[in-house]
């Protein structure tokens, strides 16, 4: 196993489609809930402990070898918004394409065969981490970090926010990212005995309803 593989996978420039998604930030900016670095920090903290925790747990469980179909169904159950399900599957498909080219292997090919239109992105992420020789904690870190780095980058574009301020928001969240990744791995560990119901189901209703509204906008910068 190479730790450096984690850097390749977690790099925001890894070509898996994330650049076109704001993680709900575009809707939150338009609704006036994110206006500056302080409100961006609040938004990211909320997303980290809800969507981020759920995603990190799914990714950790997938990296630990849990059946991806069971995890994909668990992800559906934790994603009420059809728009978010669609976005998650689209991103999962894009990630799988990039990963099959970068870390080719039978497990990823099998996943592509089983989900030709894409599985939920965190589930794919966990299996990609496995293919890259990484473990459940690495997968959890990737998912948790993506849950906040996406909105932070998008907000720089949406608000012309100072990029140093946006990056500082991410840096201040680092200790919380550690805790979320640890919780995710702990939950994933329990899946072996208790099944996927042991995974967290922390919900962010505003992200869900906002994503539905956003999907109907005629003019928008981001796909979600």
């Amino acid at each position, binding site marked *: 196993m190479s730790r450096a593989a984690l850097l390749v996978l977690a790099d925001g420039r890894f070509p898996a489609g*994330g650049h*076109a998604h704001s993680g709900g930030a575009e809707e939150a900016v338009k609704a006036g809930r994110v206006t500056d670095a302080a409100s961006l920090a609040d938004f990211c903290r909320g997303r980290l402990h809800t969507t981020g925790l759920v995603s990190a747990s799914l990714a950790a469980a997938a990296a630990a070898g849990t059946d991806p179909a069971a995890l994909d169904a668990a992800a559906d159950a934790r994603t009420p918004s059809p728009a978010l399900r669609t976005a998650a599957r689209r991103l999962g498909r894009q990630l799988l*394409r990039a990963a099959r080219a970068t870390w080719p292997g039978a497990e990823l090919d099998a996943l592509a*065969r089983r989900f030709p239109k894409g599985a939920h992105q965190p589930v794919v992420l966990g299996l990609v981490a496995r293919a890259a020789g990484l473990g459940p904690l690495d997968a959890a870190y990737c998912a948790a970090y993506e849950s906040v780095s996406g909105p932070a980058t998008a907000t720089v574009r949406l608000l012309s926010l100072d990029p140093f301020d946006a990056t500082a928001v991410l840096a201040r969240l680092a200790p919380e990212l550690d805790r979320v990744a640890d919780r995710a791995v702990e939950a994933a560990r329990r899946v072996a005995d208790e099944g996927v119901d042991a995974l967290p189901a922390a919900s962010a209703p505003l992200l869900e309803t906002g994503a539905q509204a956003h999907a109907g906008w*005629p003019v928008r910068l981001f796909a979600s």
Partner: protein
Amino acid sequence: MHLDHTHDGPAALGADARRPDGTRRALRIGLGGPVGSGKTATVAALCRALREELSLAVVTNDIYTREDAEFLLRHAVLPPERITAVETGACPHTAIRDDISANLEAVEDLEDETGPLDLVLVESGGDNLTATFSKGLVDAQIFVIDVAGGDDIPRKGGPGVTTADLLVVNKTDLAPYVGSDLGRMAADAEAQRGGLPVVFQSLRSETGVADVAAWVRARLAAWTA
């Protein structure tokens, strides 16, 4: 489940010339260039010129709307199922060069759902003179500029003007009104491009898109040879 001939996996990853079922995929041609230079109008004209002889589809990459796709739909240049819009997160050049996964999915889905196709046109959102398509996404690219954008653009060069497989200088009918020197543009383009072809066109003229359509036909003949 279909049989895999060229992959040990289930679906295409990138620019392989063969589809997973072993058939040759459609030729993919990208059209890029600055905002307002006439990319969408050229795509529409190409569709009208080629749709009787070829099976074709279009992917648009708008910056923040679906306007380009809707323009093509409104003008009914192709049936709606043959036009797909990709959202680019405010970065059109990223979606055609640095992270092409959404565009690859769009072209493959068009081919799966409406194929077999001979040709897919991938139109970039209007960007700047440095925007070029990845070779992982398209087989050839057309860069569209116009005379009203300034007759010094060919001289300034840049990756689009210099390296595109075809440079189109559009709206030549406007040259007298904006004081653009077509001779100078042609000489500068030739100097920058080292023999790569250049087409001067006005879609309002009788010739219209014919020269570009002829170039596309030649690329397609080479692709299927």
